[in-house]
């Protein structure tokens, strides 16, 4: 590997990348938009879920019940009807849940409990599950004190959350964002760009030039490595300034494990470019084998522990899964190499394997 | 019907502060082969693209086939053929499919399509490889296909932008035979090139330097005026004062 040759290839590639201001703009805006969304607009808790109450015999008691329901943060009273078909109301999506009060609600009954109907829209299982627990719970607290013998809380629980005591969602999504966006730059950008040269026929003819395959590979990948690192730093900076995410652990460890992860992504990108001939194919392949698994299987959005066995195994192949463990560990738990040796080792191994394979194929091709 | 196929007055194109074409006056007689010569960057392609309606002039006026290049580009397009510098047909279609597409785009009357296609195929000598996918053929065949597609609808004017490319001299000569045959049929040919020896084939040649017309005339006339033996020397003489390229 000749350093001068390498530098000239890298410099040319850098100029090329920097000239494409639009893509650079997108790469920088994407994390901003996603952080904005995750931080301010997207929530996983249920708030103001619409509930319709069917009250055949309105009274002061039922009215105060409805008021209390509406005031509760979790619910929003959509309407109070005197009758109607619950199924029809839910099909029309007027509400997520429906409460059917009995005609004789105001009557005090000591010997027989009041029948109250709860009808849920099951099409959104997450909301339905939450409402299924929350609505009856609301009623239970509303009824406390009405009867002689109370349904008591014999045993209560006190919950403590480790590492994220305020349950800040930012601490959760910032690592995931890093993993996703770095993968995007490392894999998608690289594979499409390198394939582009193939498609247009401007790829350096190694047999004619004095450059070796490794000169070209390292020179080509270097700018993307640099850009991705810059974006990574940018994400951490925004995370800190806007959301107060401060890594508890070592920055140094974060830096070189991120570098490893980048190498893996670049390796995949280069590998894809040796398999396909057209940019379009590179893009489709990159999306399929990198971006989708990274978002779906790594634990970024969906909990890994709920995966059925075969998918769990698959998730262990996805580099983002291991990287996410590392970043979350460092940011939230001040974890050190002692705890993170396994993910780091896996990433290192993947980097060596992928870059090696990709380089060999690249060399053979050119 | 005007005696001139192309006429411009003060045609100018500015890109920001850069003046690519600086107020050129051009007159191309009907049926002649008119060469537009100059070094790379002199403004030849820009001027041609304005004439074809691909680029809007910054100022000035012009008529192509009797129609105004600012307001009547749609009518112009039905009467011209264009061959760009790079190969601009579809590499994944066969020769025949590319040609057929051209006949449809120019809406050649259906009764005449077969006849025109056969004629173009024969003229441009691409009979053998009709069923082959264009991208697999060598540059010479692609070139001749481009010519066929540009002439099947019998345009009044044929615009050729550096048509011979960097092909060997023998093939270039062969292509010029086809061009001259086209001119013999009465088509006006407007061709740009930076090969000065090709200019010998033109009825008249115009030298473009720094976006301006440096000289224009029939080859013998130009050579006499500058007291030189070849158009290459004429070019060196007029380009001596060039600032671009």
């Amino acid at each position, binding site marked *: 590997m000749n350093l001068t040759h390498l530098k000239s290839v890298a410099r040319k590639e850098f100029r090329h990348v920097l000239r*494409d201001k639009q893509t650079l703009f997108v790469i920088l*805006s994407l994390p901003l938009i996603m952080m904005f969304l995750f931080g301010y607009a997207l929530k996983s808790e249920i708030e103001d879920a619409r509930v319709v109450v069917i009250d055949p015999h309105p009274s002061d008691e039922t009215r105060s019940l409805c008021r209390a329901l509406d005031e509760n943060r979790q619910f929003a009273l959509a309407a109070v009807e005197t009758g109607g078909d619950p199924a029809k109301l839910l099909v029309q999506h007027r509400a997520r849940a429906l409460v059917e009060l009995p005609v004789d609600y105001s009557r005090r009954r000591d010997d027989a409990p009041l029948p109250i109907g709860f009808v849920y829209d099951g099409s959104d299982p997450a909301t339905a599950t939450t409402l299924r627990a929350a609505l009856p719970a609301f009623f239970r607290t509303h009824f406390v004190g009405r009867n002689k013998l109370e349904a*008591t809380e014999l045993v209560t629980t006190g919950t403590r*959350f480790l590492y994220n005591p305020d349950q800040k969602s930012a601490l959760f999504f910032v690592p995931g964002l890093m993993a996703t966006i770095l993968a995007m730059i490392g894999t998608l950008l690289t594979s499409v760009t390198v394939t582009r040269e193939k498609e247009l026929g401007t790829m350096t003819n190694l047999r004619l030039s004095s450059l070796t395959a490794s000169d070209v590979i390292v020179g080509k990948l270097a700018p993307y490595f640099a850009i991705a690192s810059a974006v990574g730093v940018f994400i951490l900076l925004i995370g800190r300034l806007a959301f107060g995410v401060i890594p508890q652990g070592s920055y140094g460890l974060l830096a070189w494990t991120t570098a490893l992860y980048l190498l893996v992504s670049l390796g995949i990108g280069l590998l894809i470019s040796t398999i396909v001939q057209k940019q379009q194919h590179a893009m489709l392949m990159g999306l399929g084998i990198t971006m989708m698994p990274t978002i779906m299987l790594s634990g970024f959005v969906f909990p890994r522990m709920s995966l059925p066995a075969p998918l769990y195994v698959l998730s262990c192949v996805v580099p983002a899964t291991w990287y996410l463990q590392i970043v979350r560990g460092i940011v939230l738990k001040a974890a050190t190499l002692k705890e993170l040796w396994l993910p780091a080792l896996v990433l290192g191994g993947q980097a060596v394997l992928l870059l090696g394979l990709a380089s060999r194929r690249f060399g053979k091709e050119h | 019907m005007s005696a001139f196929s192309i006429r411009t007055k003060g045609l100018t194109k500015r890109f920001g502060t850069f003046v690519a074409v600086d107020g050129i006056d051009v007159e191309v007689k009907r049926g002649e082969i008119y060469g537009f010569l100059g070094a790379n960057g002199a403004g030849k392609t820009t001027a041609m693209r304005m004439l074809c309606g691909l680029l809007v002039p910054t100022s000035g006026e012009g008529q192509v086939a009797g129609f105004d290049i600012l307001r009547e580009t*749609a009518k112009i397009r039905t009467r011209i053929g264009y061959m760009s510098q790079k190969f601009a047909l579809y590499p994944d*279609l066969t020769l025949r499919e590319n040609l057929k597409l051209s006949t449809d785009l120019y809406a050649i009357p259906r009764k005449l399509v077969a006849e025109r296609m056969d004629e173009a195929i024969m003229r441009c000598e691409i009979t053998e490889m009709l069923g082959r996918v264009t991208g697999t053929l060598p540059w010479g065949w692609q070139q001749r296909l481009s010519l066929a597609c540009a002439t099947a609808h019998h345009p009044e004017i044929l615009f050729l932008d550096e048509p011979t490319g960097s092909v060997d001299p023998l093939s270039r000569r062969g292509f010029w035979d086809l061009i001259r045959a086209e001119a013999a049929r009465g088509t006006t040919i407007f061709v740009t090139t930076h090969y000065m020896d090709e200019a010998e084939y033109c009825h008249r040649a115009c030298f473009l330097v720094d976006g301006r017309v440096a000289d224009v005339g029939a080859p013998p006339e130009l050579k006499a005026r500058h007291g030189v033996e070849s158009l290459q020397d004429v070019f060196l003489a007029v380009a001596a004062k060039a600032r671009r390229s």
Partner: protein
Amino acid sequence: MDVLRRFLALFRKEFLQIRRDPGSLRLLFLLPVMQTMILGYAMTRDVKHIALCLVDLDHSSQSAALSHRLQTNGRFAFQGNLPSLEAAREELLAGRILVAVAIPEGFAASVEGAIREQEAPERSTNVMVVVDGQDAATAGTAAAYTSAIVSQWGTETFQREVIGQGLDARSLQPFDARERMLFNPELEYSWYMVPGMIILLVTMVGALLTAFSIVRERESGTLEQLLVTPVHPVQILFGKALPYWILSQLVFVIALSLPGSFYGVPLGNANVPGLALGVALYCLTVVSLGTLVSTLVSSQQQALFLIWFALIFFILTSGFMLPFESMPGWMQTLTEGNAVRHFLYLVRALVLRGASPLALIPEYLKLAAIGIGFFTASVVLFKRKAA
């Protein structure tokens, strides 16, 4: 009818080119289908196999009963009993468990005391739940679940003992909850997520391929060649949009039927013409997004990133992964221009709730408006760019 002839010629050419690119076709069809088939099971926010450890500091029959309840619950993956809270903390730090439940000393005494008094104890017996809080959403759900089980054990124990003493349990309940779960009785997450996933994938692929196809012609110079012919720029755009519009619909139908049946999504519920119309209108917006982006970029790479950028925004705010109603009001209003949101709503309403298309007319209209809007913008910008 030269206009029609020119348009048909372009349309035919596009289809020929698509057919001659088997690589893209394969990826175009396989990507949505395979991804959905494989990843469908991954898309659940339901928390299962919760790694749990118990610390029983009471060693009584009551604490054993509670432990047993937790150990045998299907959602937990019981990892074992630990002798102390410190040991549990270590396991949590190491990431080997998600939840640790500690039953304090004196648990049985407190519980039995309350039963004897037949009253709410002044101080409820408290059980400690410690959760690894890295992933806020998962942690919250796991904690809530654990608390609910412990609470329920308490209630059931109390009732059982009280009934044993001759009291009517019904009087303990102020109300008798009668529950009905409509539309998705088993609460299958895949039913909810699979349509969304398909929409996501078909959108990505449809918009990208359309944009790429136009940008490629610009990059290679064939677009310029088209522009010197009498063809009108609008015809060029239509000639590109139409084939991909047809193709996206085809892919959508296949992608919905195959993985859909695989996961048991109740496709039979849906009103077919209503669904077909929705798919047609939505694919119009997808293809139009592609044409619009193609007028804003000059390379395929730029197209890729711009579309990716737009889609991430649209998909995250569409209600696909996270509940739509939880978004702040101003955000919800902003998404009126988000075709993914409307189409997702439409599909879920038709397929999961068996809604009538007539009730969904606002959605159809919005989709049409967005599609026409994008396409019109594309035409305007394309004409400008083509001088």
